């Protein structure tokens, strides 16, 4: 599914990733951990295609094909999703209008011959998904993330993921700023989306802490430090990390 080969990335002339190798197979959930400034967010953003970063060497393959020359919206259309660490506030456009545009773009990509989804059908679908995430219906008519609390923004990200049904999702520090209840709901939401995909969706959970991993069990855990994956392990490795920290690796 996702294959990162010897990836070197720089930003503003400064090298931030120095040869990352990572393979995530269909249905697998990987956790990417490590200290702040180690390159976790860079890796997430570069997979999504953030224009600020430059790939200086290596490749990223999605379903066997290089995606380095594709635009962020094209990566989204082929099934890559990123839940942002700091979702942007966009005034003047409602969450619902935005998601309708995104959903239509995706449907058009998947089924070019089908007419666009009707607004009322979309609204019904959106309401159901919001219910599951315990989100008040009113949020759909509020401006995108505008004035949302930290927790509401994270829920909004998971809602967007539920609408777009990606094949591969990056959750960039989705757990940060969430209280226990919100964390449970968000984790449940992610698990539901994965289940709905028939277990085929794979994911990369980027996190500083291990607490989200109590709710979403990763198949593999990696530690990214100084732009390199310095150690990988199974599920139990996360527990070791929560005790010993990143210092001694």
């Amino acid at each position: 599914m996702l294959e990162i080969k010897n990836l070197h990335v720089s930003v503003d002339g400064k090298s931030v990733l120095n040869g990352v190798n990572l393979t995530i197979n269909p249905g697998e959930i990987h956790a990417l951990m490590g200290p702040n400034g180690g390159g976790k967010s860079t890796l997430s953003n570069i997979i999504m295609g953030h224009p600020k970063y430059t790939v200086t060497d290596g490749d990223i393959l999605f379903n066997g094909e290089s995606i380095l020359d594709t635009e962020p919206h094209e990566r989204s259309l082929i099934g890559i999703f990123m839940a942002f660490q700091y979702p942007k506030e966009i005034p003047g456009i409602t969450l619902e209008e935005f998601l309708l545009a995104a959903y239509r773009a995706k449907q058009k990509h998947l089924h070019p011959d089908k007419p666009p989804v009707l607004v009322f059908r979309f609204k019904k679908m959106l309401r159901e998904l919001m219910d599951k995430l315990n989100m008040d219906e009113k949020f759909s008519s509020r401006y995108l993330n505008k004035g949302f609390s930290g927790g509401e923004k994270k829920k909004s990200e998971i809602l967007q993921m539920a609408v777009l049904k990606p094949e591969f999702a990056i959750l960039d520090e989705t757990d940060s700023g969430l209280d226990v209840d919100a964390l449970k709901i968000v984790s449940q939401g992610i698990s539901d989306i994965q289940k709905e995909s028939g277990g085929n969706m794979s994911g990369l959970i980027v996190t500083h802490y291990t607490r989200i991993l109590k709710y979403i069990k990763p198949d593999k855990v990696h530690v990214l430090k100084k732009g390199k994956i310095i150690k990988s392990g199974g599920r139990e490795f996360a527990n070791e990390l929560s005790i010993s920290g990143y210092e001694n690796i």
Partner: protein
Amino acid sequence: MNTINQKHQPAKPIFSDLSRETFDHKNQSDYIKKFRKGLSKDLIEFISKDKDEPDWMLAHRIRAYDYIQTIPLPKWGPDISHLNFDEICFFAKAADKKGGYESWEEVPQDIKYTFERLGIPEAERAVLAGVGAQYESEAIYHSLEKELTDQGVIFCDLDVAVHDHPELVKKYFMKCVPANDHKFAAVHGAVWSGGTFLYIPKGVKVEKPLQSYFRMNAMNMGQFEHTLIIIEDDAEGHYIEGCSAPKYGSQALHAGCVEIFVGEGAKFRYSSVENWSRDTYNLNTKRAVIEKDGTMEWVGGNMGSGVTMLYPCSILKGDGSSSDHLGIAFANTRQIQDTGAKVYHIGKNTSSRITMKSLSKGGGQSVYRGVLHVAKSADNAISQVECDALILDPESISDTIPDIKADNHTATINHEARVGRLNEEDIFYLTSRGIPKEQAEAMIVNGFINPIVRELPLEYAVEMNRLIELEMENSVG
């Protein structure tokens, strides 16, 4: 956003089939040839005679003409020194018949074609209660629903009103914007031609918006239409003007004037979408006087023009009167949008709100220029000013020039100004959901102006969004 169409399924949007080309395309006009360029007393007498005006109006024109000689060009604002009065044709006629046409069928074919390209008949069919459209200097077409006529509402060409309702016109004409107000008010007072007269009698509430459409279409032709609106006590109404001019080779001048008298307890909204061609100087004066407990609302969208100087003004004369100014300006390549609002608090317990949004792109320059004065007499005045600028590329410029003066210490004034740039992170966020970059940019821009656009009637909101999209597509004007 597409969802606007989805939710309401409106009649075909006014400008749905148009491209920027349409606005910059000129229909052939022959009739203009016989009119000379430049300003003279002879010309003014000719205009008055041609319109068969009463003596008092000719006297008014002559007085205004004398002011032109003595009042200098404004010493502030954008450079307009290239404007050459000798190269401008100050009076032209398109309608063969005085007072316009009774029905659409009577309108000549070439003029009809121009209007059809602009979608006027559809606009009328769809929602509008009355249409008065100005083609060059004379209104040629207007209509008004019978029930409004029965209620005593007058909505007609101002040239016609001078003859048919002289007592009303004489009482109010250029009393709100006197001819010696500034250079272009004087020019306007001397050569004004055509425009709209709207009178809503005491207590009458007109719910549907009344509409007029102006179009300037002749080489070097000035447009000096006058809009005179009288809203009597406890009456209500809403009037909309839309402007679009075709493109031509040298500078054209638009120096229109809008005067609005809002009576006690009356409520009025004036909306306009202006999109003059790129070589037009749009130097417009719009002003309202609001009596006790009256409310005035201005909603405006300004695009096009080379230089625009426009600051709708509210004079809050009566106690408890209020005004609300909403505006958008879009400055594209080689354009200066110098726009804003003026509010004078005179009565007690008056309140005002100004919300302005500006966009600049392709080296365009947008300036918010505002005046807010609280007179000594204006106890407990409240004013809220908010201006937001969005700059779309590094070449473009935005500026804010507020002039705030409070002579009464009980005033509460709040002024906020924000400048933002189209942000890479925001665009990345939207594109990461499968939305192409251009669409994402348009979404951010539409989102920025949405709080104002949604105050426009639906057709105009759609039109405004369409115009913004066109401006976004064409990076060079």
